[in-house]
């Protein structure tokens, strides 16, 4: 009977399906009963992720797959609706180098509006002449865009972005310590953030996604976002002494899940509708991170704080 108090009845004007209610209750019961044990899940995930990342590092020398802006190479886009199904093979034959082709389509119609060509070995002039020959389209500055990055520059960018990641993490941790001014809540939030990043990067590695400078910027934003839900949870758990702890946690989950859901809804829209590969890359990284964040926040952060809160009650 005690469980009913967790629902603020004034919010639900319509009569809620009893079955729905009992399902939620079931999940909640399970959650609180097994909270301490559930921590195995994130711990396993993090260990697995660290393993994946390390093996990726040994295999390729990097933490994740880099795209041509970080590795050096050319990214070119040709605006045309003509389709060239064998373009990749033909270009590779012409230039004797590795080339990747992606299609840019218009949202909702699947009509091609452009072709994206990437290669880390081909030179601009080579690619231009090969492309013109194969497609028979005269490349002008109106229909053809090229972004060329020297490999030394790519390496510089990569190093710099990694350093940014580390600096951001440190700064973020400092802010957290400043807010809570005690060790355990800070560690709780920081571990959740770290786990989120680790698992997200591992998933990116597994998916074979190629990351650009924009992608790393997305990772940085993810750090900020994932911490939001942790700050919410930690603040409520520590400071709201008027409710029992479980209630504080439940309310935080409700708020936090709503927050995450709205963000994911917006990102989802962007990912599917946008015809910019940069936006797609940033948004998929954010979405993966936010989903992982749910686990990290509500299992890792909660567990670490539970003991602390009960002690200081």
């Amino acid at each position, binding site marked *: 009977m005690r469980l009913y108090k967790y629902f603020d009845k004034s*919010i639900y004007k319509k009569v809620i399906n009893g079955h729905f209610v009992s399902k939620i209750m079931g999940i909640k019961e399970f959650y609180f009963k097994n909270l301490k044990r559930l921590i195995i899940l994130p711990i396993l995930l993090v260990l697995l992720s660290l393993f994946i990342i390390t093996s990726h590092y040994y295999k390729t020398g990097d933490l994740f797959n880099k795209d041509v802006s970080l590795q050096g190479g050319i990214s070119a886009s040709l605006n045309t609706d003509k389709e060239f199904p064998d373009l990749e093979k033909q270009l590779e034959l012409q230039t004797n180098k590795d080339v990747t082709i992606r299609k840019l389509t218009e949202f909702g119609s699947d009509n091609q509006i452009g072709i994206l060509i990437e290669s880390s070995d081909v030179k601009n002039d080579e690619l231009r002449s090969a492309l013109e020959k194969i497609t028979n389209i005269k490349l002008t*500055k109106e229909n053809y865009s090229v972004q060329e990055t020297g490999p030394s520059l790519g390496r510089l960018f990569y190093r710099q972005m990694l*350093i940014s990641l580390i600096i951001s993490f440190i700064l*973020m941790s400092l802010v957290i310590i400043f807010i809570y001014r005690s060790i355990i809540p800070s560690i709780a939030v920081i571990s959740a953030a770290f786990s989120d990043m680790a698992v997200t990067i591992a998933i990116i590695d597994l998916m074979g996604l190629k990351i650009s400078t924009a992608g790393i*910027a997305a990772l940085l934003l993810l*750090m900020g976002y994932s911490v*939001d839900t942790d700050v919410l949870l930690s603040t409520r758990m520590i400071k709201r002494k008027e409710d029992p702890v479980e209630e504080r946690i439940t309310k935080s989950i409700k708020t936090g899940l709503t927050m995450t859901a709205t963000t994911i809804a917006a990102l989802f829209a962007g990912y599917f509708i946008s015809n910019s590969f940069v936006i797609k890359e940033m948004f998929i990284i954010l979405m993966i991170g936010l989903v992982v964040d749910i686990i990290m926040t509500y299992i890792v952060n909660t567990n670490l704080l539970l003991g602390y809160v009960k002690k200081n009650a």
Partner: protein
Amino acid sequence: MLKKITPRLWILIIALVISIYAINLNPWASGIEITNVEPGSLEEQYGINNKEIIKSVNDISINTVLDYYNAVSKYSNTAKEIELITDKGVYNYNATDDIGFIQDNLTIISAREPILNTKERIISINKIEINDIKYFNKAIENLFPKKPITITTSKSIYSYSTNTIPKISVSKSKITNLKKGLDLEGGTRALIKPVSDKDIMDLDVENLIDVIEKRLNVYGLSDIKIRPANIGNEKLVLIEISGADSEEVKEKISQQGKFEAKIGDEIVFIGGNKDIPFVCKDDGTCATITSCDVFEGTNQCIFQFAITLSEEAAKRHSEVTKTLNVIQEDSGSRLDKTLDLYLDDRLVNSLQIGSELKGLETTQIAISGPGFGTTRDAAIDDASKNMNELQSVLITGSLPFKIEILKLDSISPIVGNNFVQNALLVGIVALIGVALVVYIRYRRIKILIPIMITTISELIIILGAASLIKWNLDLVAIAGIIASIGTGVDHQIIITDEIISGESQNLNWKERIKRAFFIIMGAYATTVVTMIPLWNAGAGLVRGFAVTTIIGTSIGVFITRPAFASIAEKLFNK
């Protein structure tokens, strides 16, 4: 009712109004905007300015750039054949805009047309005897008649007579004040690195930027953004030019270089203000194409321009030439060594030194050189081009280092156009998605509407801020805006939930809001802090993301969130 609008709401309303004004949304923007008026042109004299919108030309209504070009096409000229007889010879050539020379008292004092010579007296033009200046002016008027033109713009009506198409640049009127970044507008982006054996100082980089800017301006490329971009210890320079052709830019920048003039192994002067305080660059008087010839089937034209040396450089020049010997030749006498011009350590020209310069300390030097082509026009063009390049190197100074191009991007504008439409669609669908989630959670329109209004206001204010500070919106900047909106919605949900849960605990408003804001401030601080390293990262290429995210979340936290709290108070406090 007005009393109920709290100060916080006022701030929001004022911010909204300023933003809407700043964005200057004008979806019915029609007509063609003047983007450039050539200095020294008739149009400039008559007071036509940038940013005026052309409504009509000669009573023909102008809506597109094509309309404009059709309307002014009748002012373009075909080439006229000119037969000019002077006291020294007969000359035949073609001219389109003007006669091709400048005269004083009917004597040619400067000739743009290469076959003409100065100091010759005009006898007749196209068989018409020129006895005095009146006849001359009449002849010019007959050859290049001025036709009346009336240009009506948003500001005023301009009526005058001209014999060429108006020397102005036009483009379609802008719909908003938002500046589009390179990704959306198209153009060229280059990341360059100065290379030298010595250490490169920040001052060197500043000089480099100064010089490149002048150089690119000299070639008529406007809308240039150049700034230092440091990656770790590397000092680089980022150049972004809208609408430019990347090959053009690459050429201009690559030629940027080290200029030295040596006699034998001694450096006599180097490019730059110190040694060369003046380089002539106007047409006709001290910088011209002096003559054209045909050598074994190739046309060759000679250009010449004057420079002034500093006294130090002049002294050096005299000291070095003092020691040289004179060689007699049919065409004249010269010194036994040449003045070698080196650009980027590459010999670009060797000038014979006239013997009269031996030991002479003179500050006035004329530099001449050739241009070649299969036709005379091609040779003239080549000579002009070479002259321009040499002038620029001398004018804008040389740098003690070479330039390495690390990154060169050429971005077409079409992608940008598609992107804007696409971004609008993304925005609308995202808002609908967010609204759905909010409604499912709260099931109250009273909650949904304030959240949506606040979110949309936030978007408008962020765009307004971007317009005001003239921030270039590129892809990553737009991603940053979306991120801020997302954070904004999150924070509003936090406020809403605090208010609702506070209800059941009978906490007063101040308490509830205070608690919400504590969480929000914490979240805000962590977001801002994670964006800070991005300011300099990636040579500043992702700076747009950091800036828009920080600005966006700040606007949210300090303007829209407090206003939302006020609105929530009104609506929930029954």
